[in-house]
């Protein structure tokens, strides 16, 4: 995932340099903004190092630059899930969904996060419903 982001960040840099060649078939970039990609990278590194609060702060910085970026909201949901804040994780994933439009992959992933959050706080029926939605999105 980090490698993909690195590549995305490189692609974004190339794009800014005005010499990019768009390659078909690459997954959708989380952002066209190099600063946002850099902060996402940082958040990812902080998450891997177990610094979830710092990762959340980096994602909030990115969200100040691109407040309607559904990818960032999803990352924040994932961080809260890791922190054991299940209700927040669920709400943030729902927020990501509200901004996702027809990005099916992203929506499916949000439903999976919602499913995990629900199951961890004991709402197994709700979790089941969320996982079904995830399946239906794809």
């Amino acid at each position, binding site marked *: 995932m980090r490698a993909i982001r690195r590549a995305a960040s490189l692609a974004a840099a190339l794009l800014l340099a005005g010499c990019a060649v768009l390659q078909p078939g690459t997954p959708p970039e989380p952002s066209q903004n*190099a600063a946002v990609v850099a902060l996402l990278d940082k958040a990812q590194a902080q998450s891997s190092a177990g610094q979830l609060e710092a990762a*959340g*702060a980096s994602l909030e*910085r990115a969200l100040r630059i691109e*407040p309607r970026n559904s990818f960032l909201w999803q990352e*924040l949901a994932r961080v809260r899930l890791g922190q054991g804040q299940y209700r927040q994780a669920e709400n943030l994933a729902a*927020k990501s969904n509200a901004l996702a439009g027809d990005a099916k992959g992203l929506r499916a992933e949000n439903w999976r996060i919602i499913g995990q959050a629900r199951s961890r706080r004991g709402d197994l029926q709700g979790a089941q419903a969320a996982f079904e939605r995830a399946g239906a999105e794809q």
Partner: protein
Amino acid sequence: MAKRKKPKKRYLIKFALAGLLLAAAFTVYLDFTVRARFEGKRFALPARVYARPLELYPGLSLSPAELTTELALLDYRETTLPGEPGTYHWSNDTLDLVTRPFVFADDPQESVALRVEFANGQVRGLLDCGDGQPLQLARLEPALIGGIYPGKNEDRVLIRLDDVPGHLVDALIAVEDRRFYTHHGIDPRGIARATIATASGDGVQGGSTLTQQLIKNFYLTAERTLRRKLTEMVMAVLLEAHYSKEEILETYLNEVYLGQDGNRGIHGFGLAAPFYFDKPLSHLDNSEAALLVGMLKGPTYFSPRSHPKRALERRNLVLTEMAEAGGITEQQLRSAKAAPLGVVDRPSRGTSPYPAFLNLVYRQLMRDYRDEDLRSEGLQIFTTLDPRVQHSAESALSKRLARLEIARSMKPGTLQGALIVTSTQNAEVQAVAGGRDPRFEGFNRALDAQRPIGSLIKPVVYLTALQEPQSYTLATLLDDSPLVLQQAGTDDWVPQNYDKEFHGEVPLRAALVNSYNVPTARLGLALGVSRVMANLRRLGIERDLPEYASSLLGSNTLSPLEVTEVYQTIAGDGFRTPLRAIRAVLTAEGEPLQSYPLNVEQEIEAAPLYLLTAAMQDVVREGTARELGAYLPAALEIAGKTGTTDDFRDSWFAGFTGDRLAVVWVGRDDNGPTGLTGASGAMTVWGDMMAGLNPAPLILTEPDNIERVWIDPVSGLLSDEGCRDAVELPFITGSAPTESAPCGPRSLGRSIKGWFERTFGR
């Protein structure tokens, strides 16, 4: 006789003994007092409040002028070759600057030399001057925007004796207390010298040692009595008995009063150095040290900013005494005397240039901290204030109100207003104006003015309806005919439209867009007042409001801040995020104490909120707020709502772009009529402000259970693209009308037309 004498003598002895005991007890008491204060925390340190740090990145919309304003707020200085932290240089559209090191809530940041290139009102490129590499992102340190001060607004920055340059200590001792290192708290020779000097008319001299001065400032009142003087001397001796000279000196250097900045008292050399010279204490040269020491005698009288000539003479006198005491050479004396005062210009800021915003920060802090801790622990508070937005808000409000008064021949000062700006998705408060004078520290209308909200309630009524797609859609026809509500024990309620007319059957969307009162009241009564008010609570009002039929037309009072909470949830796609003015709190040492993370809670389902927002965009496009087009381009697709109350007492506008929400109230403090509608008053302030902020367009994400259908607005029935007056409206899937208007797809006419088209082609 002898027998009588004996008891008298005994009494005398007893008397003397009692007196000694009393004196001893008093001394013990003084001793306790002296130690108690010195052992504990000696100084109350104010909480320091910072604005948001400016993040620079390629693509950021920011003009060179805006960045220069930010740098001025950070006290950066322009130099030809930036090298020191806090300096910059412009050459055309390229800025070189060196940031200061800073400890942020998330991580510390070293000083960095940056090159920022601008083009077309944007940051085009960012370069690390150290290694010449491009940067994706750089963060400036945040501007200090105020403090939460201990009593009497004492501000200070604590220093340790090690940080104090030797020549400053030399100057202090040469002028104030030459035998400081040898005496035991009081200096009899000094007192004698002072007495002689005073008697011989050689000017009045104090004769107090540094220790006595510290005792006076620290423990005693300013009264000048012999008793107080004696107490002071005893305590000075006691202090010296318990503590080292270094400790006493350090405390003195941190304690003393060195000037005034508005209502803020400048205490201690640690704060005085940056306040007067914009540099740390350790960097002061001989003449600067002498200037500060000279001011101790009378910081107001010898103020270098208001009385430069006097201050200069006093400084040179101090320098001469330093030379006499052997602290500096003749050569150093000459060059120091020739130096200018070196005091930097700085507008007075007082406790804060943004008192209304600080007020909000303080209230939010009070949920988690004690007042006492805020005023003494030296906490560092990182807030969400965006100075650029704040200035735009302040200037729009004060200038526009003045213009409205002139245009309507009102006495200057008649109108007042309040304004709050937030970011739509994360609910950070970027600006607060509590009145037309932004520096005024009194009544904060943004937080405390409780006013009827008028038509600002209508979106809540219509949202409640749109949450029932089986019964209500944007095309549903509402009854706008005379309405009389009779309730036992109260007067009849007879709502009127603004234009005093009735419009027959009006589509729900048009009723909101034109802000019709009568169909709104009828709709709200059908839904139930309590359901509408329950929705208001879900949107962000945390207290119970009285529920009347007139609540449906906004008779309830709310503060601009509360209104902002409500519209925040609408602007945030139905997700509620309590408004945040604080991002994080750090201890004085830079340890994270608390963060205020972004939390969201879905309160309103996506689809009805989408319908409501689309209709609020129509309010600006074609309804009561259409005049906003004179301020901002239509392509921004702004969503908003005007509000006007009875007799034009309150003028409201609440609206949002793709990135910011702002709520404006305009009215009078005496609650008198202003003659202004929401559109002619508050909305003009809103427009002025947003026009200066380069807003992002509001592009809504359509939920997947929304479909678009052509409607005949008159009948509310199905129509078709080519039909006269047909409008395309969003519907929650399955809620669109199925019956067709005469020109609609299932109408007879359309069938015939379709048959012809099918038969003969186009």
